[in-house]
């Protein structure tokens, strides 16, 4: 029996990231405390950039690696590249140390008791924890693997590798630690719950097909007859697991709570990257493995898409916390992406890839802006406190407004082109009614985006309002990049659209 061949070159980005993560753990254990932060940040950035370069070099590859477990193809590479770009910017945000008096956005020691003497000492000593970085690297690795996974087992592993670090990261906020811990608990319990459901579905699918490989499952669908019940139940249960990750209704309940409770840089990272990875996996699983069942899962996805768009948009209307509002907005956006997914063809894949990339960038930027608006209690996330921001800090408010307009899908922002492409894919795929619902949801959604703009620009500032902290270069560069990309991709989306379209072919 021959040893299986492993295509190291094609897997290099993943290996780089995971390797760096392991090294990061070692650094955490052995490097002196003072040096840890620069080393960790440097290592993360180097690893991410190196991985990005490798991904770029791999562009155009279309193959199944690691004995069929990992697909290195257009969608995978596109998403990996995007995730890496977003992760690089995110690491910049994590490294921001000028906003908080005592350091960064994370608790000095997440396991210390809030308000305890231990914590006070840590704050006084200006101790910083740096375990965030290896955790993030693990999560990034999982995210990169998730959309590339080409068999059920790898899918599950990737899901867990991605999720577990995120559960921890959510509980690490420096301020409002009770909320942060609660968010972590909720995310963890519900995440584990959904993983279990996903796994159970996986078992059914395996039971039906007798194989874990996507390609073979697809063949089995045409070959096998009977026992469809098991198959359909399995597909449904697996769908639930993935829809949970993308935050689709009715599996969205965790989103607002976790987005609100998690440290804001983490929220941004999670909102942008998790959604990318999960949609990548969802699309690959449903197109490659379950493509033959299209007529079976399309109605289900229709229903989920409609519910997601409407609930996300409608509930966001009455939110008073900016992070919560963005959470609901992310739910609505998941719905928009689902409309394209229903179309199920390669142009839909391209549209989804483009949408995810632009959405990720804008989301990251928006959450970064949130970190800058602060008062004595930390970030001032209550909407009322944002009144008159446009007068105090017109540039920041304008940037945030730009991100909001992109979310609302106003032309000349990337959000518009994204919406245009997913809706085009949907109508092309015969889902015109979904687009009508999408349009209605967009209209409702526009209302709450506009409300924030009104608040920022047309209201008089409250006398005791928050101040806009001056960030270090890390955050400034990240936000600028995000804003520039959002605008640029709105005006000349051609190249990225082209790239997404070229990258839309799944290898089987």
């Amino acid at each position: 029996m021959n040893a299986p061949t492993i295509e190291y070159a094609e897997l290099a980005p993943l290996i780089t990231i995971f390797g760096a993560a392991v090294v990061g753990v070692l650094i955490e254990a052995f490097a002196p405390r003072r040096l840890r932060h620069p080393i960790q940040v440097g290592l993360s950035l180097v690893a991410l950039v190196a991985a990005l370069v490798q991904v770029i070099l791999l562009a155009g590859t279309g193959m199944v690696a690691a004995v069929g477990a990992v697909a290195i193809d257009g969608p995978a590479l596109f998403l990996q590249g995007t995730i890496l770009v977003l992760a690089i910017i995110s690491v910049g945000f994590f490294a921001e140390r000028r906003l908080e008096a005592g350091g960064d956005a994370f608790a000095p020691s997440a396991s210390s008791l809030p308000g305890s003497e231990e914590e006070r000492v840590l704050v006084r000593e200006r101790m910083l924890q740096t375990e965030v970085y290896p955790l993030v690297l693990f999560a990034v690795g999982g995210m990169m693997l998730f959309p590339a996974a080409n068999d059920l087992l790898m899918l599950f592993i990737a899901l867990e590798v991605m999720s577990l670090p995120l559960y921890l990261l959510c509980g690490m906020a420096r301020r409002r630690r009770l909320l942060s811990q609660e968010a972590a608990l909720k995310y963890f319990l519900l995440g584990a719950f959904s993983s279990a459901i996903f796994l159970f579905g996986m078992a059914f699918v395996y039971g039906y097909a007798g194989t874990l490989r996507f390609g073979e499952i697809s063949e089995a669908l045409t070959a096998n007859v009977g026992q469809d019940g098991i198959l359909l139940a399995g597909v449904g249960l697996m769908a639930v697991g993935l829809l949970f990750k993308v935050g689709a209704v009715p599996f969205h309940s965790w989103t607002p709570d976790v987005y609100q409770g998690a440290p804001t840089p983490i929220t941004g990272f999670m909102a942008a990257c998790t959604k990318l990875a999960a949609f990548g996996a969802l699309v690959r699983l449903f197109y490659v493995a379950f493509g033959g069942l299209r007529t079976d899962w399309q109605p289900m996805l229709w229903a989920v898409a409609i519910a997601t768009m409407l609930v996300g948009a409608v509930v966001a209307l009455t939110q008073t916390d900016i992070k919560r509002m963005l959470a609901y907005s992310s739910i609505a956006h998941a719905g928009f992406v689902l409309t394209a997914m229903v179309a199920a063809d390669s142009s839909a894949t391209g549209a989804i890839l483009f949408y995810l990339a632009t959405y990720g960038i804008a989301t990251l930027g928006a959450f970064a802006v949130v970190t800058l608006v602060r008062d004595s209690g930390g970030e001032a996330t209550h909407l009322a406190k944002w009144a008159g921001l446009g007068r105090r800090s017109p540039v920041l408010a304008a940037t945030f407004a730009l991100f909001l307009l992109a979310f609302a899908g106003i032309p000349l922002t990337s959000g518009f082109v994204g919406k245009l492409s997913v809706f085009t894919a949907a109508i092309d795929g015969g889902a015109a009614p979904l687009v009508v619902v999408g349009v209605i949801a967009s209209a409702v959604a526009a209302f709450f985006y506009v409300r924030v703009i009104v608040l920022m620009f047309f209201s008089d500032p409250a006398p005791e309002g928050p101040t806009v902290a001056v960030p270090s270069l890390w955050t400034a560069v990240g936000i600028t990049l995000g804003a520039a990309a959002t605008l640029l991709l709105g005006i000349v989306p051609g190249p990225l659209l082209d790239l997404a379209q070229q990258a839309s072919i799944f290898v089987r």
Partner: protein
Amino acid sequence: MNPTNYLVLSIILFSIGAAGVLVRRNALIAFMSVELMLNAANLSFVTFARMHGNLDGQIVAFFVMVVAAAEVVVGLAIIVTIFRTRRSASVDDASLLKL
């Protein structure tokens, strides 16, 4: 051997686990219920592996065990921290984030 019995058992185990998550307040027990669900899935995998006569399902079961272990590590860390903070492991007490 009738594989259906094993499957029914796994479904029952899964349901017990799911019900446990829904009804038990204690975070630890809720988490244990999730583990039960994972193991129910494992049982299915092994059953199906046996049915199909290949090893894939059994391998999955091993992986799931490892993953479950990792999950325990992360989960316990979170639950313990919360317990230390609140002096309670009731999931219902952690309901500040809402609406």
